[in-house]
């Protein structure tokens, strides 16, 4: 792929220069309501978050565990739509033009909007990349290739079942970074073990120059540290979403995010 100069690329260049690992935080857009969700989002960079993954709510999140399923339901019940997710990003961008935002979710809400319209709207709102769980390389023509052409990174998931034969295909049209799914399973379920993940990350890094970020099953500052130490960074989702779901005040949610980020940054 041609080198895209997105906020994601610039972010990793900066982290490399600083010798630091990336801490990526996931929240569900509009959970538990649009205003609270935006307040949390706005606080993430100061809490130490390098990249924000913003969930697009979907009724049928097949790769997610109960924590993120419920977050999506809360957001939908609060009237969240794709338009409002884009509004959130625009509002965030008014005060932050640096932190990369990656939209994460499922294909149908994008397909329903129309791929071309979605990409134009996403780019204009200030989105940098996309992670769409139900679009494997076999379906690259649907969204991956049009997204890259529109100047958005398309971040692919690699998993423990991605064998050596398949890995080049998974990496082929990936940009921004590679998201390594540390476990076979759903979000927020099993706990990732750094000792098991390390050789897998090494295997992927041997096949690409892109940063490799590890997600799924990371829920404490120590786990964030251990995983970030063997990769280019880590993603925490369910552990943050759980606090939001429990109705904790925004300041408390962000305090936990700071602790998780500090764990990753110590690595």
């Amino acid at each position: 792929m041609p080198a895209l100069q997105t906020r994601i690329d610039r972010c990793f260049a900066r982290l490399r220069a600083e010798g630091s690992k990336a801490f990526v935080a996931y929240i569900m857009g509009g959970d538990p309501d649009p205003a609270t969700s935006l307040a949390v989002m706005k606080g993430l960079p100061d809490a130490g978050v390098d990249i924000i993954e913003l969930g697009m709510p979907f009724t049928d999140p097949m790769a997610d565990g109960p924590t993120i399923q419920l977050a999506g339901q809360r957001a939908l019940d609060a009237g969240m739509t794709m338009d409002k997710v884009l509004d959130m990003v625009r509002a965030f961008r008014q005060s932050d033009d640096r932190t990369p935002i990656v939209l994460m979710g499922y294909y149908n809400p994008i397909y329903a909007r129309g791929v071309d319209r979605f990409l134009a709207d996403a780019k204009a709102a200030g989105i940098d990349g996309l992670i769409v769980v139900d679009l494997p390389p076999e379906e690259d023509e649907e969204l991956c290739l049009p997204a890259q052409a529109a100047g958005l990174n398309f971040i692919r998931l690699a998993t423990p079942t991605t064998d050596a034969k398949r890995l080049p295909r998974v990496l082929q049209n990936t940009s921004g970074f590679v998201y390594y799914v540390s476990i076979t399973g759903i979000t927020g379920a099993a706990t990732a073990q750094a000792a098991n993940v390390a050789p897998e990350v090494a295997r992927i890094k041997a096949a690409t120059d892109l940063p490799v970020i590890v997600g799924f099953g990371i829920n404490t500052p120590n786990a964030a540290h251990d995983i970030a130490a063997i990769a280019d960074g880590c993603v925490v989702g369910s552990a943050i979403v759980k606090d939001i779901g429990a109705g904790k005040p925004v300041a408390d949610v962000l305090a936990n995010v700071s602790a998780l980020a500090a764990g990753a940054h110590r690595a």
Partner: protein
Amino acid sequence: MDDGINSYMTGPDEQGRFGLFGGRFVSETLMPLILELEQRYEFAKTDPSFWAEMDDLWKHYVGRPSPLYFAPRLTEHLGGAKVYFKRDELNHTGAHKINNVLGQIILARRMGKTRIIAETGAGQHGVATATVCAKFGLECVVYMGAHDVERQAPNVFRMRLLGAKVVPVTSGRGTLKDAMNDALRDWVTNVRDTFYCIGTVAGPHPYPAMVRDFQSIIGKEVRWQLEEQEGKGRLPDTVVAAIGGGSNAMGLFFPFLDDPSVNIIGVEAGGKGVDDRMQHCASLTGGRPGVLHGNRTYLLQDPDGQILEGFSISAGLDYPGIGPEHAWLHDTGRAEYVSITDAEALEAFQLSCKLEGIIPALEPSHALAHVMKIAPKLPREHIIVMNMCGRGDKDIFTVAKHLGFDMKV
């Protein structure tokens, strides 16, 4: 664009597409699994020993061939076309579902899988899966919406008797589509030993084609059985079947797709009526294309692409999507798709009981209700074959409730 179609029986293509529909919209974790499944199925498909095992079990365990029955009193009552029932309700476990389950589980055994998972709505696919797992001594886990667990208690008990673990699904809205989500979540977690036995012609490629191939025994039998009764070369003029996901319909339709003289009609569940209140399950007549559960097809969804719940008196038709091959047959015009309301299905249910002594499931009652609409207007030499895809034992409580009959003795 589709004027150039030489055959309707060659799909799907290498990407698992039927035109725009189908595909492999799954997470990366599952992708290697469905590629392996495709490879193993492609091999099995041309392996005589695989089909020999199927034929033996179809004959001695399921009771195939199922009869093709001329319904004389119904035909006389309707006063037009000659109506035949394909009696798949007489199969072991009471529906067409076992045709497919046998195929998938024989394949699973050949792949060395030891644990079988399935989703079920009304419980028919779950019972069929639990049955075949019991027969082969395989571990079986069935995901079923918590709401369906409650209203289909006899089938839940059957599955448990057969040794299956029934997991009530409370995620989402606790219905069939949520059961399918949870089955996919299980599969993505237990990738090494588990085989996902999907109950209909939906899901990622190769499931829609594989399930269709296993169910096609229905239409293949109809071809020779009708010749036996009506003379050499006689094809049905119209074939009719009910559609939830659409597996019994694909099984009946597929062997006739390239016979242009055969009218093909699929009957969707119209619930309380196909209108903007969306209290129905008619994906083709009331939905639009989208992506769910691994394939692109017609879906009930809101303008933002969020999936809506289906509504039908029949739990077996209660799915917001439809198999991708039906979506394609719809768009190419090769098959016609109509909808029937709950009230019309209930009327057909009673007519079949009274005139033919056959208590149908609510699913084929929808097909029968459409036959009741078209048969009177057709000439006496016109032959309709309708798939009686399940028996009504499981539905008598629902029907009693709707007819105001107190079941407490």
